[in-house]
């Protein structure tokens, strides 16, 4: 009886407080991993594949080749192929890499997708005009989770 009550309490709390973590509040581990879901909810791999392919969203394929997204044209070669990323990394590592890759790879050219301030001459999207910090992060908390969910499906054969 007591157990059931506690579970119920957690479910209620989860519903009420399944809070999004703001870009400035993300806590990175020593090697850049982020343990908890940024949106408080699990990711959707299918939506993540879309985010990775769309120029206007993550556009990850601008720099990375992903065999599972074979029908997406013009995959770039600035970063390593992401095939097998879900076998190489834990979910928390991938969340950290997508949110702010520089926490894992200092000096990386990979942009931080969940960061809102601390930029040099921040712009207003692609207008070339000045933007005001905090900027909306490149991806929402849920989009980061979706991307991570998709990356976790990229297992070594």
């Amino acid at each position, binding site marked *: 009886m007591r157990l059931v009550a506690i579970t119920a309490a957690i479910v209620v709390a989860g519903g009420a407080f399944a809070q999004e973590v703001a870009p400035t509040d993300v806590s990175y581990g020593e090697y850049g991993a982020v343990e908890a879901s940024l949106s408080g909810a699990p990711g959707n791999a299918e939506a993540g594949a879309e985010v990775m392919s769309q*120029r206007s969203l993550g*556009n990850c*394929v*601008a*720099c990375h080749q992903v065999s599972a997204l074979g029908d997406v*044209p*013009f*995959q*770039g*070669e*600035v*970063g*390593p192929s992401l095939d097998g990323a879900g076998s190489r990394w834990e979910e928390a590592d991938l969340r950290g890499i997508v949110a702010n890759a*520089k926490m894992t790879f200092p000096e990386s*050219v990979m*942009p*931080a997708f969940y*960061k809102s301030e601390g*930029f*040099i*001459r*921040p*712009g*207003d*999207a*692609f*207008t*070339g*005009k*000045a*933007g005001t910090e905090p*900027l909306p992060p*490149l991806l929402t908390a849920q989009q980061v989770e979706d991307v991570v969910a998709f990356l976790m499906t990229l297992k070594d054969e």
Partner: protein
Amino acid sequence: MAFAGGADDDVLSIDGVEMTSKVAAPPALAETGIDTAISGWHFREDDTQAMQTDSFDNPAMLAVERAADVWNTVEGTEGKSCATCHEGPESMQGVRAVYPKWNETAGEMRTLAMQINACRTENMGAEAYKYDGGDMTAMEALITVQSQGMPVNVATDGPAAEYWEKGKEIYYTRYGQLELSCASCHEQNYGNYIRADHLSQGQINGFPTYRLKNAGLVQTHNRFRGCIRDTRAETFSTGSPEFIALELYVASRGNGLSVEGPSVRQ
């Protein structure tokens, strides 16, 4: 991270004259790990490349012809044309190769565009051209073509040194929400594809450039602006002190390459 694309091994000749489109790294490239300065031409598709090898096929030459008329046209309060003081456009041979250049009298670093406007306003009593307007890019193209095949040779010492240092700092600054510097793309990743774009070293020996995408001539500073905009940053404006310094620095990274402008790019 294979250099799958890389630079090609084709030879660039314009109207039968061979260009130096690859050259041992000039001093400005020391400590970059780059051993060869390479013209952007080597990273383009064959059909785009071909348009630059014959003046008849180069769409920029229309602007050059237009500017050749302007060269002889009297304008302004002084009743003069460029030809009044400079004879024919061929008197401009070698000029493009050494710009931006320190102007002792004015005590400033001058781009070619600034010098053209200085002559218009001070020597002709004519209106300055818009820095990156069509009249200016056409005149730049006319002056540039006189130096085709000559090695880029901008000075970086003496009074130029402080501009060069400033340009270098800008080159390595990671601007915008994407936190990318010129070096992120053109030094660390030239030869690689970024989505559909084949990254070059971002050399400016081919400027002004006829861009097929814009169906028109594009100046160095327009290109800089586009590249910075693409990092989701606030850009600098054309003709700004930042871009003048950056132009000098980037030009020096290509010292030794042939002046190739007006070039053709996608």
